[in-house]
């Protein structure tokens, strides 16, 4: 008997027991769709986190002040005031791996324009910020070095701020005077919308010269963060080392003493986050794989029952000339059809399921071809592995005993 005939015989046997066939497939369907959905969502989460971190800028190092120590109580990272504008030239001169540096100091401020009134973060910085954080302008211009040097009262606003103040993001605000905590600033530009791709809404921001911010808004000379762009991705570690040495020197820290600042390396954070999401992917995939395994055992279980139930049929087939191989093929193909069909349906369910969950969680679930192929190959493999034992049992039956079986 050729292969095609075997498939037809198996299909006929499966169709003769529709309900049982469907219930058997259910295990595989759930298993495969779980694997695909889980891995898809986890991959989507990885991609999202990666793009968020990369959205901060490229080859980015962030220097924050160290921890405050008061009476033995240690504050969190960034709680001390150890960075000032005096550090800026030191960092700029730290080494060849440092391409650009932008300080930032900010606070929340009440913004008023005419009847418009909103509260947002005002960030004091320099012209370099636009380069490092990839800020582009919709209208007007960004801050210049002259603005910083002259303590100019000029402000660059995000589109959300314009929206909140004037009711429309397209409203003409350039050249107008707004008040930040009652200090008048002239608006010189509006940034292009970046969306909220980072950990904050990049559009709900106001940038002013850091000198003006320190003198007029914050009232101290400290810097919250230095954003540093390394010359290339390979040079990030070098840049980090150079900045560390320069700052330790500037702050006169003795050898053996801890740094009074900390440096966040974007590449490291990315790596850590990817490690975390990878573990998550494997965890979810693993749990789903177990359900796939259980589905496979379900197939074996049903096939064994089916072999016993159809003992007489096997006897008849053997009596009229079926070889052991024919019977083996019939039951094996039945198991493979169940698992492959279940796998196929599972892929459809898993795919649509992860799209649905992705939409609900507002993220893109990425279904990789690899995970689909894996799930499919795995379910077909399950059919063979868990089908062989029952099929061998059927093929090995003695026709006389099988015919006598009631």
């Amino acid at each position, binding site marked *: 008997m050729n292969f095609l005939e075997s498939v037809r015989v198996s299909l006929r046997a499966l169709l003769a027991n529709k309900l049982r066939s469907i219930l058997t497939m259910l295990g595989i369907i759930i298993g495969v769709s779980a694997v695909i959905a889980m891995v898809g969502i986890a991959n989507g989460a990885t991609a999202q986190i990666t793009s968020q971190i990369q959205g901060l800028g490229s080859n980015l190092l962030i220097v924050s002040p160290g921890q405050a120590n008061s009476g033995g109580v240690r504050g969190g990272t960034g709680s001390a005031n150890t960075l000032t504008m005096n550090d800026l030239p030191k960092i700029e001169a730290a080494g060849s791996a440092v391409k650009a540096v932008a300080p930032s100091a900010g606070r929340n401020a009440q913004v008023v324009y005419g009847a418009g009134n909103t509260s947002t973060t005002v960030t004091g910085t320099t012209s370099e910020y636009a380069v490092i954080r990839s800020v582009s302008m919709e209208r007007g211009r960004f801050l210049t070095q002259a603005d910083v040097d002259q303590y100019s009262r000029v402000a660059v606003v995000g589109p959300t701020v314009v929206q909140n103040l004037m009711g429309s993001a397209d409203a003409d605000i350039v050249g107008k005077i707004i008040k930040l905590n009652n200090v008048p600033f002239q608006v010189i530009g509006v940034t292009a919308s970046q969306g909220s791709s980072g950990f904050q809404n990049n559009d709900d921001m106001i940038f002013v010269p850091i000198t003006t911010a320190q003198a007029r808004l914050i009232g101290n000379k400290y810097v919250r963060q230095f954003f540093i762009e390394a010359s290339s991705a390979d040079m990030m570690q070098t840049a980090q080392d150079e900045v560390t040495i320069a700052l330790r020197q500037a702050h006169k820290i003795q050898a053996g003493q801890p740094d009074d600042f900390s440096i966040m390396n974007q590449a490291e954070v990315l790596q850590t986050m990817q490690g975390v999401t990878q573990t998550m992917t494997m965890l979810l995939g693993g749990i789903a794989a177990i359900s796939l395994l259980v589905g496979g055992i379900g197939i074996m279980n049903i096939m064994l029952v089916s072999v016993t139930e159809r003992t007489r049929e096997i006897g008849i087939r053997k009596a009229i000339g079926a070889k052991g*191989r024919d019977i083996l093929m019939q039951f094996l193909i039945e198991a493979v059809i169940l698992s492959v069909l279940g796998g196929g349906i599972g892929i459809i369910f898993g795919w649509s399921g992860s799209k649905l969950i992705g939409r609900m969680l507002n993220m893109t679930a990425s279904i990789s071809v690899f995970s689909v192929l894996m799930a499919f190959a795995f379910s077909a493999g399950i059919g063979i592995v868990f089908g062989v034992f029952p099929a061998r049992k059927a093929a090995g039956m003695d026709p006389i005993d099988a015919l006598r079986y009631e």
Partner: protein
Amino acid sequence: MIRLHGIKKIYATGEIEVAALRGVDLEVGAGEFVSIMGPSGSGKSTMMNILGCLDTPSEGEYMLDGVNVARATGNELAVIRNRKIGFVFQGFNLLPRTTALENVELPLLYAGVGGKERKERALEALKAVGLGERVHHKPKELSGGQQQRVAIARALVTKPAIILADEPTGNLDTHSSEDVMAIFQDLHASGNTILIVTHEPDIAEYTRRIVRFRDGEIVGDEQVANPRRALSQEREERGAVS
């Protein structure tokens, strides 16, 4: 067609050895219509299994259609069963949920006969047993007599060297029994070699030769002088002449 020489079959159940057959010699020529009779425990079922190549003898020679099948392996036996033997069982043994036509096609399927020819030959066999109109019925939609006729068609379809029937009328009423025996008589008339195992003397009388078994040995072998002719209304409808 069939030549048995010194056939012994010994079953070892634990320490006790039971001899089901103790040296059987038997020859059946082509075109014979033989019944094998004997009480239960006489070894006739064992004989049937060996004749049908479902089992091999412990000792002895079994020539079937010129081939020694006494020492064949499982797969070889399967091929022999498929090519040379047509089975008819007491309990019909049709596949449930499968149409008459598909049931009859089954031996051809295992013989590797292609779809179109398979269907034609199956239809032909079903016509030969008078079931040309009920080919798409499933076994449970057929009467016992009709089911047995499907089984006979299935046995016939491969044009086997012998047709073996094990108590073919055991589950049938007298009317259907006579129908079935009429078919066997017609098949015999058209040249088929037929062996029927039965314990009913009435049934044996329809055949041409009776071989009697007792305690694993042949104790009688006689020709039937005047075989009874099975009368069947169904046979008249088929318009068979014999």
